[in-house]
């Protein structure tokens, strides 16, 4: 165990004690506070008691002091009177020859100073009962009447004390003759007059007296009761005044207390009122706090909800963001694809343009150069026929004519091919127009070309189309021309142009009741130079439907045939 722990223990103890003290002080203060009036009253009574005791003591002291003064004064006066008597009276009497009687018994003798003093004292004090004056000496004259009385306790002690301390006085209070009295003693010194007598007189017990030597003592008994009676009057007045003051003070105190009580009750009322108010406001505050708490809870809940929703939303956003990123990447890839496709397209377009140009050059070349030899063949065959007619037989002439027919047919083929090529290249200038009008005009032309034929032509009016009118005219020329051509062997030929639904699709149609075709070969119908009939039966170069197909295609439309052998043909087309 270290010193530190010990110190700590001590400090703990001290601290405990200190705390107890503080607690006690606080308790005392509390009691003081609650019984303030009682405490004040007790204190007041205590004060009165102290004042009373103090005054009693003061009274005793005062009586003693007055008595002392009176005794002292009397002793001094008595001494002065004796000396005066010894010097002035007795010496003069000595001079006159008169003897100083040493005894009282001597007739006509004048009294001794001591006796005079005693008797005078007795005379003087006779009016004041209890007061006594005595002169005491160790060596008294025999005439002195008092010498047979022995010294009592006080007197002996006083004599012994005053011999040692002659400058002082000796006194004490004691019972004398049944009453309280001050016993005072002082020295009586030998004066010149005294010394003269005491050293000369024959019956003097001692003859070596010196002036100033202590001859004896003077005792004065001073009763105190008269003094007390004298002063008690004043004390009664004082007590009366004090009593009045006390009563006044008590009245004031009572008033103050009453006033304080009133103030206190008022204060209490105010405090109660304030407490009620405080309680009310406290209740309000509590309610407010409760409401606040409720609101806070609601807010917290809302915030939590919001947070949850934000989190959810964030999650969704993240997901959609990822999706977006993916989409963007896809888009980018698609864009790249489309860019490369575009590049390819541009390249293809350039190629196409180049090949178009080539085709144009080819067409030009065909139109120009292929025809020239044909012209030569035909021209010179004709020249042979004309110039060498007589050298040719019928067979020779026939052959030459066939040469010419073949060359002319080839010329037709070339023209048809060029036409097809031109239609493929031609720009499309779309506008809305009435196809019915064009169809009628074409049929009229065909009728004019072969006026002998009777064909029933049915055209639906007001069939509008948005396309290139010239190209659509070519389409109708070919389709109606074919219908016209292939109904030639029909007894009641009928050609119809109209618009209707075919397998749920709206389409224009050209229908005839002519030769028809075998659907097995339908796919060959639109190929260039494809024919399903003998040339001799239905002449033609076989590019008509190819041309029609190309034009419909270039308009973004479709064309399809329907028919059967000898049951007519129908061509449907959309634009």
């Amino acid at each position, binding site marked *: 165990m270290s010193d530190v722990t010990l110190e700590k223990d001590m400090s703990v103890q001290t601290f405990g004690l200190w705390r107890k003290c503080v607690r006690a002080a606080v308790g005392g203060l509390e009691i003081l506070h609650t019984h303030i009036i009682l405490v004040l009253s007790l204190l007041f009574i205590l004060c009165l008691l102290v004042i009373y005791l103090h005054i009693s003591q003061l009274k005793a002291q005062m009586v003693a002091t007055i008595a002392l003064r009176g005794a002292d004064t009397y002793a001094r006066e008595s001494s002065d009177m004796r000396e005066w008597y010894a010097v002035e009276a007795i010496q003069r009497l000595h001079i006159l020859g008169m003897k100083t009687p040493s005894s009282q018994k001597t007739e006509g003798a004048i009294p001794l100073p001591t006796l005079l003093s005693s008797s005078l004292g007795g005379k003087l004090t006779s009016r004041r009962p209890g007061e006594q004056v005595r002169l005491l000496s160790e060596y008294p004259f025999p005439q002195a009447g008092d010498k047979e009385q022995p010294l009592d306790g006080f007197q002996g002690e006083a004599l012994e004390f005053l011999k040692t301390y002659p400058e002082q006085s000796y006194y004490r209070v004691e019972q004398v003759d049944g009453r309280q009295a001050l016993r005072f003693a002082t020295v009586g010194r030998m004066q010149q007059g005294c010394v003269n007598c005491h050293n000369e007189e024959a019956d003097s017990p001692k003859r070596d007296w010196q002036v100033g030597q202590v001859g004896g003592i003077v005792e004065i008994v001073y009763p105190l009761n008269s003094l007390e009676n004298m002063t008690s009057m004043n004390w009664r007045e004082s007590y009366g005044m004090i009593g009045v003051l006390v009563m006044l003070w008590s009245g004031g105190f009572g008033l103050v207390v009453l006033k304080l009580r009133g103030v206190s009750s008022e204060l209490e009322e105010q405090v109660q009122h304030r407490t009620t108010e405080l309680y009310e406001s406290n209740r309000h505050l509590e309610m407010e706090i409760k409401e606040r708490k409720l609101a806070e809870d609601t807010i917290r809940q809302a915030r939590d909800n919001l947070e949850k929703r934000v989190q959810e939303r964030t999650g969704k956003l993240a997901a959609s963001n990822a999706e977006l990123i993916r989409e963007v990447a896809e888009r980018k890839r698609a864009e790249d694809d489309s860019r490369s496709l575009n590049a390819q397209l541009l390249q293809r377009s350039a190629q196409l343009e180049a090949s178009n140009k080539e085709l144009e050059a080819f*067409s*030009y070349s065909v*139109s*120009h*150069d292929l*025809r*020239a*030899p*044909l*012209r*030569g063949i*035909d*021209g*010179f*065959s*004709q*020249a042979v026929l004309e110039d060498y007619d007589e050298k040719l037989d019928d067979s020779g002439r026939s052959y030459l004519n066939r040469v*010419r027919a073949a*060359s*002319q047919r*080839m*010329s037709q083929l070339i*023209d048809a091919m*060029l036409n097809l090529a*031109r239609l493929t290249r031609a720009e499309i200038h779309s506008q809305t127009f009435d196809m019915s009008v064009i169809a009628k005009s074409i049929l009229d032309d065909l009728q004019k070309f072969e006026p002998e034929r009777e064909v029933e032509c049915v055209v639906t009016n007001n069939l509008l189309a948005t396309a290139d009118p010239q190209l659509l005219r070519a389409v109708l020329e070919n389709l109606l021309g074919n219908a016209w051509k292939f109904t030639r062997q029909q007894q009641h030929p009928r050609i119809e142009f109209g618009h209707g639904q075919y397998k749920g699709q709206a389409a224009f149609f050209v229908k005839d009741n002519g030769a028809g075709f075998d659907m097995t070969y339908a796919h060959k119908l639109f190929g260039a130079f494809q024919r399903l009939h003998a040339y001799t039966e239905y002449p033609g170069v076989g590019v008509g439907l190819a041309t029609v197909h190309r034009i419909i295609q270039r308009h973004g439309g479709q064309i399809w045939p329907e028919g059967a052998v000898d049951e007519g043909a129908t061509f449907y087309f959309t634009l």
Partner: protein
Amino acid sequence: MTHKHILLVEDHPDDEELTMRALKKNNIMNEVVVARDGVEALEYLFGTGAHAGRDMDVMPQIILLDLKLPKIDGLEVLRRLRADDRTKFLPVVVLTSSKEEQDIVKSYQLGANSYVRKPVDFQEFSQAVQNLGLYWLILNESAPERVPV
């Protein structure tokens, strides 16, 4: 060289022969000067090269101009002679195998007076030549040879 002669600009000998035959068959006896390419045609018309020193007062009554020619083609020949005061009013008939639209349009733009496509059928060709001769050599009144500047 008569005043009313024909300038035939034709590179193909067959076509030249057939044209001459057609003219003959239609009794068009006017003199025919043949130029076998564009350069020769221009030399003849402006009296330069092989035709330097030619009498420039004599100009053809009609020029039958093929388009597809060696060296300088028919359209260029047409452009040059329309650009020259001496030849700008000479009647020019484009006589060609082409039926191409662009050829027809360009020819007229450059100031051709007529555009005739040579038919393959000789009889038709002969007919066309006869019509041309009748029109350009007989009916048509040419511009004065000396054009006041």
